[in-house]
Structures are given as structure tokens and as C-alpha cells.
């Protein structure tokens, strides 16, 4: 084939430009550590990477929620524990009152002790979480969970009424798991569904009323009151223990979810890396190969274009 002088120059120039472009692309990959610089480099992998990054982001949100859920359940669990302890203490005191050796004065001081327990239980029932929300108010966490319980002279405190609702706040801790992280006060403190009066608090208050009656009062019947107080406390302790067991099993389940999410996070990171990241071994060897080719192209270009018959015409 006949070759024109411009073909020699153009072909050489085109090759040099192509080689430099290839090298610049590899250099960009090396500098960024990314295999895919623009979606057109690998459209399928880029689209996939976007979807995986959403899955990763959703999973990260679940991990955040799991942290919140764990905190909330721990607070709930320790509150339930302290409620159980208080109930147990009141039951012990009731048993003591039933052995019949206490003088009227001793029974009065026992009544004061139980009333103090009553107030501490009420304080727990109206406790707030770290963000200032009432723990046991259901969805109505902005208002006091329970009202009432004011001291009454010569008797037990006034009735305690539930102000919240039956809702229990939930958090999404997994792709298909929405976990309750609170228990409504009505359930924990056994509120009557129609009047809203807490049966747990009434049992304690009734006991105090009985203890404070004058020894001359014909209606006074300590042994019967002791029996009913023990029965009331047993029912309350059963209730709290059941709820506490359910909270405990949720915490165990949550631990499993935490492990699972951590595992998923690792897998998503792996997938993203495989889709987007550069294989440095391959890229560096490609780069040095391109370097060699470019050098050869430059040197041969200079040689070929340096040849001219005119140089030999003297």
C-alpha cells in the first residue's frame, strides 16, 4: 500500500494520543482507588452499587435503632427489677405484720414504712427516660403516667389513676422486625380498664388503711388485711415478672439482631468493594505495560518521522 507522509504523522499522533488517554484513565483509577470512574465504565455494576449502598444505609439505620432499642429495654428492665424488689419488700413486711406480735405502735410505723414504699413505687411509675419522656405512659409519653396517690391522714394514699394509653412504642430493628421497646403503665401497674385505677397501688393503699385503724375500731381485722395484701402482692409480682421475662427475651433477640446486622454490614461492604474498588495488582501491572508501550510509540515515532529522502539530497 502506498503511504502518504501525513498518514505516517497522523497514525503516529493518533496512537500516542490513544496511549496517553489510556494511561490517564489508569492513573485516575490508581489515584482514586476506584475501578469505576463513571457509570459508563461498568453500567451494571454502578447501578448495583447504588442499590447495595442503599441496603447498607438501611442496615446502618437498623444498627442505630438497635442501639436505641437496647438502651430503652435496659432502662425498662432495671425499672421492672426495682418494682419487683419493692413489691417483694412490701410482701415481706405484710408477712411480718401477720405474726400477731406487733404492738399497735409498731403497726403504725410499719404503715409509714409501707407508705414510703408506695411513694417510691409511684415515683418509679412516673419516671422518665433519657429524653424526658414518661416511661410508662404508653403513647402519651408527654404527660405524667399516673396521677393521684396523695397522702390521706389516718388512711392509705388516695387512688392512683393511669393517664396514658395502651400503646407500646416500637422500633424497627431488622428488615422485618418491629420490636416493642416500652410497656404501657396500665399493664405493668395493673390499671382497671374502665376506671383507670391501679389495682397494684390500691392493694398497698388498702393495707396501709387497715394498719392505721385505731385498735378500738370494730372493723379492724389485721389478719384478713395481711392475707389480702399478700395475695395482692403475689399477683403484682407475677405480673411484673412475666413482663420482665418478655423484656429479657427481647434483649436476647436484639443481641442476635445486632450480630446479624454486623454480619450484613460486612457483606454489603464486601460487595461494594468488589463492585467498585480497584484491583491494584492488576492496575499497576497494566500501568507499567502502558508506560512501556507509550515509550516505544514515542521512540518509534521520532525515528520514523525523522527519515526523509530530502536529508540525503546534497
Amino acid at each position, binding site marked *: 500500500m*502506498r*503511504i*502518504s507522509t501525513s498518514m505516517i504523522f497522523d497514525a503516529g499522533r493518533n496512537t500516542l494520543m490513544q496511549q496517553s488517554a489510556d494511561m490517564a484513565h489508569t492513573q485516575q483509577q490508581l489515584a482514586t482507588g476506584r475501578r469505576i470512574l463513571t*457509570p459508563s465504565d*461498568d453500567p451494571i455494576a*454502578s447501578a448495583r452499587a447504588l442499590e447495595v449502598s442503599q441496603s447498607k444505609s438501611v442496615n446502618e439505620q437498623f444498627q442505630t435503632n438497635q442501639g436505641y432499642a437496647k438502651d430503652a429495654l435496659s432502662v425498662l428492665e432495671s425499672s421492672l427489677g426495682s418494682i419487683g424488689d419493692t413489691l417483694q419488700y412490701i410482701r415481706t413486711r405484710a408477712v411480718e405484720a401477720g405474726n400477731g406480735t406487733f404492738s399497735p405502735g409498731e403497726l403504725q410505723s410499719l404503715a409509714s414504712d409501707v407508705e414510703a414504699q408506695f411513694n417510691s413505687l409511684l415515683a418509679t411509675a412516673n419516671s422518665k427516660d433519657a429524653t424526658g419522656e414518661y416511661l410508662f405512659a404508653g403513647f402519651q409519653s408527654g404527660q405524667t403516667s399516673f396521677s393521684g396517690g396523695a397522702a390521706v391522714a389516718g388512711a392509705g394514699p388516695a387512688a392512683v389513676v393511669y393517664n396514658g394509653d395502651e400503646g407500646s412504642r416500637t422500633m424497627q430493628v431488622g428488615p422485618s422486625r418491629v420490636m416493642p421497646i416500652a410497656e404501657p403503665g396500665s399493664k405493668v401497674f395493673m390499671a382497671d380498664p374502665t376506671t383507670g385505677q391501679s389495682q397494684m397501688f390500691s392493694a398497698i393503699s388498702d393495707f396501709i388503711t387497715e394498719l392505721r385503724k385505731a385498735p378500738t375500731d370494730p372493723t379492724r381485722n389485721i389478719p384478713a388485711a395481711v392475707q389480702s395484701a399478700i395475695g395482692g402482692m403475689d399477683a403484682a409480682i407475677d405480673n411484673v415478672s412475666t413482663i420482665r421475662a418478655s423484656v429479657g427475651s427481647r434483649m436476647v433477640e436484639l443481641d442476635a439482631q445486632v450480630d446479624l446486622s454486623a454480619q450484613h454490614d460486612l457483606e454489603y461492604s464486601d460487595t461494594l468493594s468488589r463492585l467498585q474498588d480497584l484491583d491494584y495488582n492488576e492496575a499497576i501491572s497494566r500501568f507499567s505495560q502502558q508506560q512501556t508501550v507509550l515509550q516505544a510509540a514515542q521512540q518509534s515515532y521520532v525515528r520514523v518521522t525523522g527519515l526523509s529522502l530530502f536529508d540525503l539530497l546534497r
Partner: protein
Amino acid sequence: MAGLLSIGLSGINTSQANLATTSHNISNADTPGFSRQAAIQTTIDPIFSGAGFFGQGSKIDTVRRQYDSFLSQQVLTASARKEEFSAYGSQISQIDNLLADTSAGLSPALQDFFKGVQDVATNPSSIPARQALISTGQTLAARFNALDTRLGEIRDVTEGQISSTVDSINTFARQIADINERIAAVQVGGQSIPANDLLDQRDSLIGELNKLVKVNTFTESDGSVSVSIGSGQALVVGNTASQLVVTPDSSVPADPFRSEVRLATPGGAVLLPDSILTGGQLGGLLKFRDETLDSAREQLGDLAIAVSTQFNAIHQAGYAIDGTTTGTAFFTDISGLSGSAADRRSAAGAFAVSITDPSLIAASGAADASRGVTAGGSNNENALLLAGLQTARVMNGGTATFQSNYSQLVSAVGNKAREVQIGEKSQEAQLEQATNAQQSVSGVNLDEEAANLIRFQQAYQAAARVLSVAGTLFDEILSVSR
């Protein structure tokens, strides 16, 4: 001897002509579009004598350019396709980079927005969490708007380029008409005595025009070339050039920036549909606009409409923190823009957050007496439903999530960009082959010219020698008579 002198002289003349042609080739070795020329040398008609025909020396018949119209046509075809891909490619690469960018793309904003929703679901009564959701919603809106603005800028640039390309086409058309007239004027001897350099210039102009829009050419009997574009619309006939004009697209009055190309004729401007204006930069720009830019803007608009409409539907069914307020829209209602293509293209720009009061965010579900549940406060049932939208398949007839719909857009543009890049490379290779084939016929090789220079120099020296011999012979005769 008179014969010898005139034969020697003819040799000197032909050698001079050959040397001039060679020098012309050498001078124009780098002139774009130049075809190397050769002086066609023949013998002078012989004189008959009784002993036979005696040669009378050489003469130059004509000077002809080395040119193959078939090869040139191949270059034109490959060049129009290559320029089309090249114009398309330089436009689409801007979108390609834009959509999947980790900071400018939509994905991160969409993910952050749903993180905000999850935060409200987790802390439903927290005003800061609610305020943060409004902020992430505004960030999402800003991203939609920014993408729309950027795509709008690309649209403006594309329309501007369409307009300036049409201006250049008109300029080339006039120049070709002018040169047609000059060629007709100088080729007085007919096409057998070609005005080589003017023909090269005209071919070069046609080549440049063909880079802008694919042309078909036809050589008329008077040596002028008619140029047509599209499906045969005449742009240049003889020494008259028609003009293309860019006017606002009458079929899309809602989009005043959109232009269409018309051919001005005495009877009025005739519309040239985008589908027939193929090849060249104009073809690439129109194809980019119709195939990629429009559909990218429409898909982005569809996504904006779907996000706002679906989110609003759930949000409006929920209750505010007070437990009573309901029916509040979170995003501005843009569902009315889902009708025409022009409306869909504008939807991403209209995407906005309409809620301002964080307490109005409807995180709460409805009160339900059977479960003893009231609305408001830390009721997060509706917020959980809103958060569920992130992974719900609510687009493309229930087959795609918001994210996967956006991924489809990124993938569609990426695939198209890749296709165009590959097309451009393959057309570049074809153009190179066609150019090489054409150059191997028409291109100047300086070594060849150097060799010719020596050859014709020697021919000149030999012819001069003939003259000197003729002179010697004449001296011989004179000395005999002395």
C-alpha cells in the same frame, strides 16, 4: 536540426511542468484536503515521412489530481457517523458523571432523608428529630432541584449548540455555492480540464459540512455539486444555497427553550424532523436531546412525583404530635405534573417540602379504641409506615423501589454512554481506515516527491543536452561550408 531543437525544447518544457507539479505537491503536503497532482505527459503527434513516423518530442496533456470519488464518499460516510457519536458522547458524559456522583447524585440525599424518617420513628415525640426530618427533606428537594437545574443547563447548552451548528451549516452551504460558481466559471474547457485545487477546496468544504450534518452530493453536468441533507432536502443547488433556520418547537408550546430545525424555502420554512437529520454533530446533538436528555429528565421527574405523592399519601393519613391534626402534606403536591412529557420534565424542579412546623409531622397513627391506643405523643405507627416506603416496591407497576428506579436511570444513561463511546471508537477506526485508503491514493509522500524531483531534474538535464547536441551539429554544418 530544427526538429532536434524543438524536440529538446519540448523535453525541457515537459520537465519544467513536471518539476512545477512536483514542487506544488511538496508545498501542499500539509494542506488539508489537497490531492496530489500529476502532469500527464504524452508524445507530440509524429510527422509522417516516407520512412515512417518520426516522433516530435513530448508535451503535457493536462494536470490531474489523484482522486477516487468512491474512497472520498467512504470517508464522508464514516466521518458523519464519527462526528455524530462524538457530539453525542461529549454531551452524555456530563450526565453520566452527574447522576452517580457520590456528592451530587440523588442516592445519598434519598438515603439521608429516609434516615431522618427512621429517626422520627425512633424518637416520635422529639421535636429536634422532627426538625431534622424537615431539613433532610429540604436537602432532598435541593438535590432534585439541583439535578434539574444542571440538566436544564445541559439542555440550554445543547440547544445553543444546535443553533450554532445550524449557523455553521448555513455558512458552509453559502461557501459551497460560491465555489460551485467559480468552478463553473473557470472550467471553460469542460470537466476534462479540471480546476484541481478548486475541486479540492470544494471537497474540503463538503467534508467540513458533512461533519456537521450528513450530506449527499451529486455532481451536475456543469461541474457544480448539489448537496442535500436529511431525506433529500436540497441545501445547495449550483450557485444557490438554501438556509436552515432554528425556531421554537411548535409541538411543545410548554417548553419554549426547545427548538426545531426548518429549511427555508420560497414557499415558507419546511420542518425537518429530528428523525431525518441524522449524522454529523447536529444529528448527534438532536439524538442526545431526544434519546437521553429528555428521558433522563422525565425519569427524574417521575421519581420526584412518586416520592412526593407516595410520601404525602401516607403522611396525610397520619396524625401530628397533638394527636388531632391530620391531612397535612409533607411535600408540595406535584402529582398534576404526571401528564405530558413536558410536565414530567419539569417535575424535579418543582419538588419542594411544604411542611414547616415540625410538630405537624404525622408520625402518629390513628387512635384505635379496640387496642386502647391513642394518637399523638410518641405514637410512631405512621412514621414506621413512612420509613417502610424506602424499601417498598411502589414504582414501575410495583416492581421497583425509589432507589432501584433511580439506579435504573443511572444504568440506562451509563449503558447509553458506553454504547456511544464504543460506537465512537469503532467509527474512529472506520474513519481511519477510509482516510488511509483515500490518502494512499491522494496523499503526498515527500520521499516520492523527492525521488520525482531527482528524476525530472535529470530529464531536464538530458533535454538540455539534446539542445547542446543540436547546437554542435549546427556548428559542424557551418564548418563544412567554411
